[in-house]
């Protein structure tokens, strides 16, 4: 077989051999499948998105794509629905991730210090994170249902005023944040717990000998040691929060009064309901840009922390 291949290579490349060529280019050949997959799954869609973002694309297949240059990006400046979506996404991301971080870190400290052996409790705490987002959204929709929902039934039984959790302009975003915090706090908790488990013991022993209080130890030792883990946890959660879709789609549909319209929902509406994929690509690029800027900032902070 090898002999045959060699002969074939010789016939194709006079003066060389297939084995020799393979040996010389082995590293490229080994990389080729990965590069190919990357091209197909990441680079091609990204390039295509850039291409779509500078065109007006008609839903009529017989009409050509019209080049509009920066037109779709300029439209972002004067689109009030886009501004609403940016504001709502920012509010959601900041509040939800902050709450998840505080609760996740608090739970990790509690479990790590006092109930380290209760692995059953750790498993239970992780259940929300393992559920499909759509199941979480439907569960919370049932909980929030104004007339028959369990939350209002409890309020009613306690003599408290019932609320339109997902239907009230002042409560809708809060309700979505609560559902998200319920699902994703365990993720922060898990990372923090892993971080706490890897902390060295010696500095704490020394600090204790010097009479440092628990709070002092947490502030001066635990937090600085955890900084890289915190940076990763926040980075992943922020990136995910910027893509929020399922909860809003199921619970509120972006309402009431546009109070929960987030960027992913708006991109979906523009692309699929309004059949304007060019503009949807421009909004998607904006989200990509924000994500890259935030990631770079987090990575820098992380390197500094290291």
């Amino acid at each position, binding site marked *: 077989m090898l002999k045959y291949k060699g002969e074939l290579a010789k016939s194709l490349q006079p003066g060389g051999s297939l084995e020799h060529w393979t040996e010389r280019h082995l590293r490229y050949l080994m990389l080729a499948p990965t590069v190919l997959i990357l091209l197909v799954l990441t680079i091609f869609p990204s390039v295509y998105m850039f291409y779509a973002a500078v065109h007006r694309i*008609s*839903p*009529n*297949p*017989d009409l050509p794509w019209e080049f509009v240059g920066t037109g779709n990006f300029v439209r972002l400046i004067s689109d009030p*629905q886009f501004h609403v979506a940016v504001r709502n996404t920012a509010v959601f991301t900041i509040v939800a991730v902050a709450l998840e971080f505080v609760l996740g870190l608090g739970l990790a400290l509690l479990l790590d210090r006092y109930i380290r052996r209760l692995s059953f409790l750790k498993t239970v705490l992780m259940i929300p994170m393992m559920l499909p987002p759509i199941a979480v959204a439907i569960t919370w929709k049932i909980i929030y*249902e*104004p*007339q*028959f929902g369990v939350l209002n039934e409890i309020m009613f039984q306690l003599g408290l005023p*019932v*609320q*339109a*959790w*997902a*239907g*009230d*302009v002042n409560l*809708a975003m809060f309700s979505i944040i609560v559902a998200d915090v319920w699902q994703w706090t365990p993720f922060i908790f898990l990372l923090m717990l892993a971080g706490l488990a890897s902390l060295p013991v010696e500095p704490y022993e020394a600090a204790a000998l010097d009479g440092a209080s628990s709070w002092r130890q947490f502030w001066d030792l635990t937090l600085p040691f955890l900084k890289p883990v915190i940076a990763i946890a926040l980075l992943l959660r922020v990136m995910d929060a910027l893509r929020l879709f399922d909860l809003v789609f199921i*619970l*509120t*549909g*972006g*309402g*009431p*009064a*546009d*109070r929960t319209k987030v960027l992913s929902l708006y991109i979906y*509406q523009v692309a*699929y*309901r*309004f*059949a304007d994929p060019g503009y949807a690509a421009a909004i998607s690029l904006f989200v990509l840009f924000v994500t890259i800027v935030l990631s770079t900032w987090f990575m820098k902070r992380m390197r500094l922390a290291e």
Partner: protein
Amino acid sequence: MLRKFCLALAVATSAFAISASAWADFTVLVPSSSEGDGLRAAADDYSKMKGTKVEIVQAPYANVFEQGANAGATKSGVFDIILMDDPWIPFFAENGHLEDLTPYFKNAGMEGPDNDFLSKSLAICRNPYNTGPYVCLPYVGNAQMFFYDAAKYKEAGVEAPKTWDDVLKASKTLTENGGGRYFGYVFRGGQGNPVVADFMPIFWSYGANMFNEDRTKVTIDTPEGAAAMKTFIALRDVSPKGIESYNANEVGTALAAGTAASSINWPNWVATFEDPSQSKMVGKISYSPIPAGTKPGSSEIGHWTMGIMAASKNKQEAFDFMIWATSPEQIKISASRGNPPVRASVFTDADLTKQEQFRHYPVLMEAIQASTPRPRHPKWPEIENAFGIELSKAVAGTITPEEALKNAQAAVEQITGLK
């Protein structure tokens, strides 16, 4: 040998996965709802009878539009027939996604659909509305009706509500006496399609319209529109807390559970209200046409219609199936499966009308004949979204009803380019 076998198996599996519908003679895209289930059952019957293989692809409501639009825009030909909600027809027809049915009728020796179809059901299947060529055939005869608990209304001093003033009068009394657990009225207040769908009949009942006759002006912010909005907001005040997020399910459940006395709704809810396993109100809900405002009431029509995709490679087979599925016999079977008919002969069929579950048929037929289509515009999804945002804000009380009308007028003018 084993390697060759595995390779052959892999190729065969891939080919099957890539063209999942290739085995079928034609493919139909339908919603995951009673309408889609009905057509699926009909397709099974057709397959058995004709030996034709029909592939039914079911998707949630919004995804049917998206998948149909995607297939049309890419000319993929993956679907031969699409079961469309009627407001989608202008989008699909005017973007070249639907086949003109005229030559198929000619080939079949027909001038068009027969006169047994209700005229309003046929009008929506022509593009432009009622004047253009047929681009689809009606299959499910949906039009909104007014649902109410007659006993409760009587308690509140209203025998049979004829006008929105009657509805308001009864609803106010019932809500006041309900102690926060029972309400006179309930509606879909969710942003977008839900709130628009429940506002439009009231809008029309006060003589308002989204566009003028010749479609050269947007006419939302008018005295008629303001009168409709005043009634709508008054209805909000007698509805349950939280209707700002209500969709059809919440409204239907409130009526079936006996926690609300009246609402506008679609006829497919009748089956739920009359089913003892799902409803506390069996035999207690009355059906009537949409109440009048300053003008006669008018339902929003919401028919499900079958059209042939322009990129289909099996157009004749698709047309033959559509003609069969919309025949009087098949529409009657479809009605018995819970889908409202589109033919006068089925609406008046004694076999059906003598049954309790079809007692709403005379009212529904009247509602269809007095119905109005949603404004026929290829950008309707975008218009509906913009209008729905302003209505949602008005219902939530973040802006005044006057501001909502003014903003909606400006938004629809911008979308349509009409001033």
